[in-house]
């Protein structure tokens, strides 16, 4: 690869969405975290402020316009305001994805002045008890307080609630909370089962019946409130029989940068074997986006295996999620087994069955120390 920048070859795609994982450090221990299991190893090699700003400038020139400031917990970074200000001046629309831990009213005001456009607040539960169980500590009241201040400051706020078998029953409460807090929308998110979420799949994956009830609750709520507050709820693809069009197609829309500067087509790709990611400290983003082996590996439709290659839905879902394919079949280039057409779909059905049979009462919390919670205690 040319290390002083190459001209873009036949790549018509611009990375509209730049996800900046500023740090993997986070005070929460959510057992479905999409960060790598060895997240702590990057702490000593995080990009500094100047390096982040430089990366963002390069991203902007490539056409990135939506910026996600994420992590771990981005508020752990003391230079968050400086990065935000620089990003806004470059013309990014800034989205802060946060647990709110590390925010105060004053910090919210500073971030607003620095150019914060939108904030996504994570919820681990609709009440103190479930929130503590899944976050690992008491943050619920703080989240509510920060949400109220965000509303008062007029910062658009979306609530993100990762749903699983132990909190699905709280969907209505979460939606009510969203209305109360003046959220622009509520996202009821599902885990992609790899990494931490895969380790905890028995404790997380809801049954089809539980999901049905949840869908009914969402439907009722929408009717009652006449869709005043948009709700995004997608049933886990393991039940759909069709995979998700992951990242809108590999290397077409999203570019993700890890805390130590590795550039990925999706956050989960750090763990895919065989293709070491390129790093923004050594190569230009333009070069990486256009030429890096990891980006090129699954770009377009030509690489697709059967049955995808001759499937008339291939342009809709691009063969599904690479990380899930790797996690469930051992082969990142396989058809996502969430698809009923995959020869390995039976393994997904077995997994789902196993989760349903399991009491699912043990959680391996996201931690560098072995921290296993028994939900019955």
């Amino acid at each position, binding site marked *: 690869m040319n290390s002083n920048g190459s001209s873009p070859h036949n790549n018509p795609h611009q990375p509209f969405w730049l996800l900046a994982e500023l740090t993997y450090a986070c005070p929460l221990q959510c057992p479905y975290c999409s960060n790598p299991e060895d997240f702590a190893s990057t702490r000593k090699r995080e990009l500094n402020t100047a390096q982040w700003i430089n990366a963002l400038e390069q991203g902007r020139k*490539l*056409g990135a*316009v939506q910026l*996600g400031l994420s992590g771990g917990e981005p508020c752990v970074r003391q230079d968050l305001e400086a990065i935000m200000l620089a990003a806004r001046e470059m*013309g990014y629309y800034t989205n802060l994805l946060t647990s709110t831990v590390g925010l105060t009213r004053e910090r919210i005001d500073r971030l607003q002045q620095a150019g914060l456009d*939108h904030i996504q607040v994570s919820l681990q539960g609709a009440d103190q008890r479930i929130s503590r169980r899944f976050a690992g500590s008491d943050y619920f009241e703080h989240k509510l307080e920060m949400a109220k201040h965000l509303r008062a400051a007029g910062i658009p706020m979306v609530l993100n609630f990762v749903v699983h078998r132990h909190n699905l029953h709280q969907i209505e409460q979460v939606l009510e909370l969203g209305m109360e807090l003046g959220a*622009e929308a509520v996202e009821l998110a599902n885990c992609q089962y790899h990494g931490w979420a895969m380790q905890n799949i028995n404790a997380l994956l809801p049954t089809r019946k539980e999901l049905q009830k949840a869908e009914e609750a969402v439907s009722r709520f929408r009717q009652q409130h006449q869709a005043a507050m948009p709700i995004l709820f997608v049933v886990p693809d393991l039940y759909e029989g069709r995979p998700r069009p992951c990242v809108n197609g590999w290397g077409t829309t999203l570019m993700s940068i890890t805390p130590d500067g590795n550039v990925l087509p999706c956050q989960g790709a750090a763990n895919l074997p065989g293709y070491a990611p390129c790093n923004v400290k050594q190569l230009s983003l333009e070069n990486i986006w256009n030429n890096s082996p990891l980006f090129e590996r699954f770009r377009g439709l030509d690489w697709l295996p059967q049955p995808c290659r001759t499937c008339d839905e291939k342009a809709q879902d691009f063969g599904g999620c690479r990380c899930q394919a790797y996690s469930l079949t051992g082969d990142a280039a396989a058809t996502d087994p969430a698809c009923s057409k995959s020869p390995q779909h039976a393994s997904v059905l077995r997994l789902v069955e196993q989760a349903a049979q399991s009491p699912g009462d043990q959680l391996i919390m996201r931690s560098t120390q072995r921290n296993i919670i028994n939900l019955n205690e």
Partner: protein
Amino acid sequence: MISRECSLNIKKGYRMQWEESQTGWVILFPEGMIQLNDTAAMILRQFQKPTVVHEAITKLEATFPGEEIQNDIFEFLEDACEQQWLEPTQ
């Protein structure tokens, strides 16, 4: 229904800007973007600050002298409000 006396502006939290990489105007909102054609951009740019509809129409008519554009503008504004790109000034 929109009247000539209505004041409208780009929805709070949304932003209109020129995107060099696309040689065009876009509307940005939480986690999303809409690319605007030239006509849409021209009309919406009138409402980047709260503006009364009839004032915007007067300005736009000056750009297209002699053409009957009022109805088209109204139709567009109705649509833009439904899409939530524009909102009545709070």
